[in-house]
């Protein structure tokens, strides 16, 4: 066996807390290791060339890249092997960054840990055998779930790139929440105009089918050949698609969750979204208006610890609008911290102040509806004083909550939710559009609060990522499925009984089982159920895992 080990410095990310030199020297002396090198960035082109050249020079039959976590750069390193006609499953990625250099500070301890981690990779990969990669054709067809701004922009992008696109929207109309916004900042135009223009363009395109009042009810298959079941007004429909973008937006926070806000009990207490929907307001000539920030945001007690990013701007828009409409109005905005983060927003904040909106940093402790007005009792946290003031209108600047269907859709698409029940990205920084499932991307505020501009960009970015995958026209199917050694199979049918994918079949004649490959999902339950491991999960054989354990523990 000729193993090549390439240890990445990741600039300073690994090298800073792991003695990479010591590692490469240690592994260079082990049997079966013919080359062991550390390198500043193994993922860089020269880094990849180093692997390629070593495969050629030393005739490597196993390659270990000790670097970042395996879910990053996975296909890229596999391609390096493929190009050298080496089976890509003879590559072993060892995470010495996310699982070592970044979680410990002590260079001695980290180096020892990294040594163990790489050793387990070395032991494990020795048992690995070339696995057959099945190449399947990919349908150049995409499903976009959700017709808000992010879904619309994703669909438009994919359509323009020549993909057949299905856009599914639960509501009868496209446009999502943005459609209801009267005056979008900073565009200074109506949301309906923005979404209407996008919809018009989308409807003019030949390769787009828009299905409103429709929902996704089933999702099967694998990347390139997913089959989606849709519940449409015309009945159930099945479509085959290569991949999907989930862009189901958010649910406006419902202030009724916090009874102390008195929302729904007094018509003078409204949300920012209610104002968008309302007709003429029945306010006196000189109305007193309070605007409360962070309603349903930054609130640990109700499970919304995050900042919703849009509510400060919404509060500014409301303040400005009221001041412009009622010259003699008194408008006071109660905020925790002003987070006017988008470009131009800080200036917008200053403008609004100049237009006469008062800003008070404070917590509202109690809201008391009274005949003459709504009484707000609270504390000014800058002055350290309590106050009581009466208003004719209290506007709750509500934040974003997880979309109502997030759990349902996550289950269908087999993707994960984050702790706040928004969709979870594959990597918080490096793969913000991907999910753990190949070909399924997330866009817009369903993956956490975003403003309109961010949602549109996010939609386009996810669409671009999906396009990149689909446009290849082919994909490799993971070969990690189970297989049976019929000579060792006792035919006890335990695996068959346990397999919830119904992928194992019993042969009455031969008294052994076999695996229906198309049905196997690759969980490995059968392998762990079989007492003699006559059924094994490819890529995760007992010998691999056994030796990985040994590598962590045996004396070296």
């Amino acid at each position: 066996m000729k193993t090549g080990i390439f240890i990445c410095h990741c600039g300073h990310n690994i090298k800073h807390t792991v003695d990479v030199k010591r590692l490469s020297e240690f592994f260079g002396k082990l049997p079966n290791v013919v080359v062991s090198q550390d390198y500043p960035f193994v993922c860089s082109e020269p880094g990849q060339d180093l692997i390629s050249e070593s495969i050629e020079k030393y005739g490597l039959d196993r390659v270990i890249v000790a670097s970042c976590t395996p879910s990053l750069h996975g296909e890229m390193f596999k391609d390096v092997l493929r190009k050298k006609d080496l089976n890509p499953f003879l590559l072993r990625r060892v995470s010495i960054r996310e699982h070592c250099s970044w979680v410990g500070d002590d260079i001695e301890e980290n180096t020892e840990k990294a040594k163990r981690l790489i050793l387990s990779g070395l032991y494990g990969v020795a048992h690995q055998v070339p696995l057959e990669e099945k190449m399947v054709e990919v349908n150049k067809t995409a499903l976009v779930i959700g017709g808000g701004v992010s879904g619309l922009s994703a669909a438009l992008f994919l359509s323009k790139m020549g993909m057949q696109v299905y856009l599914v929207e639960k509501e009868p109309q496209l446009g999502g929440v943005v459609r209801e916004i009267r005056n979008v900042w900073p565009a200074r135009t109506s949301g309906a105009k923005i979404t209407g223009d996008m919809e018009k363009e989308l409807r003019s395109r030949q390769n787009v089918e828009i299905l409103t009042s429709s929902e996704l009810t089933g999702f099967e298959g694998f990347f390139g050949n997913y089959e989606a079941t849709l519940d449409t007004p015309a009945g159930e429909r099945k479509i085959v698609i290569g991949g999907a973008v989930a862009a189901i937006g958010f649910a406006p926070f419902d202030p009724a969750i916090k009874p102390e806000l008195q929302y729904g009990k007094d018509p003078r207490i409204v949300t920012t979204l209610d104002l968008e929907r309302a007709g003429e307001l029945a306010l006196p000539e000189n109305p007193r208006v309070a605007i409360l920030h962070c309603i349903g945001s930054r609130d640990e007690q109700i499970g919304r610890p995050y900042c919703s990013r849009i509510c400060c701007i919404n509060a500014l828009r409301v303040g400005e609008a009221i001041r412009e409409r009622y010259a003699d109005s008194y408008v006071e905005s109660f905020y925790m911290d002003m987070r006017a983060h988008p470009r131009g927003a800080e200036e917008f904040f200053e403008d609004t102040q100049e237009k006469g909106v008062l800003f008070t940093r404070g917590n509202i402790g109690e809201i008391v509806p009274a005949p003459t007005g709504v009484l707000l009792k609270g504390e000014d946290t800058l002055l350290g004083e309590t106050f009581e003031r009466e208003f004719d209108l209290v506007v709750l600047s509500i934040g974003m909550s997880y979309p109502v269907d997030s759990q349902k859709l996550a289950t269908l698409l087999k993707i994960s939710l984050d702790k706040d029940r928004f969709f979870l990205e594959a990597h918080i920084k490096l793969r913000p559009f991907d999910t753990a499932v190949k070909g399924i991307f997330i866009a817009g505020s369903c993956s956490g609060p975003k403003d309109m501009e961010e949602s549109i960009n996010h939609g386009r970015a996810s669409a671009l990522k999906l396009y990149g995958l689909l446009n290849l026209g082919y994909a490799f199917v993971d070969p990690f499925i189970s297989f049976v050694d019929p000579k060792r199979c006792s035919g006890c049918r335990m695996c068959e009984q346990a397999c919830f994918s119904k992928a194992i079949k019993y042969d009455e004649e031969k008294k052994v089982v076999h695996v229906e490959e198309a049905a196997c999902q690759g969980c490995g339950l059968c392998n762990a159920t079989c007492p003699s491991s006559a059924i094994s999960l490819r890529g995760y054989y007992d010998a691999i895992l056994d030796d990985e354990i040994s590598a962590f523990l045996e004396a070296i």
Partner: protein
Amino acid sequence: MEDRTAKNPEIVGFACTYCTFKASEMAGSLRMKYPEGVKVIQVPCSSRVDPAFVIKAIFEGADGVFVAGCHPGDCHFIKGNYYTRRKIAALKELFDAFGMKDRLRLFWVSASEARRFVEKVTEFYNDIKEKKNAG
């Protein structure tokens, strides 16, 4: 090396690709700290963990072993972790019979629960360390 292992426990963990391993990746990305003695083996699903691996790890010198997967009901493979739960609960019962129940733990850690991952493994590590240094 000698006195390092004498005082510091070795914890071997099995983490499923779709939930707990993801959480551990995120923990790293967020620069959360946990002891070096905790080392994780990636498995596709917690149901791949043969209790024999756990027993083997203990007899090869692990002070503690944890098996971690998606929360029940959230398994990427739909039902794998329900089987894990039965098997590991049974294995814990077996360990209990031999008075070493505290050396095996079962965690449910979803992909988003980086902090929970760190808390769980650190707590396990500290408990084991305390017992090890006491005895």
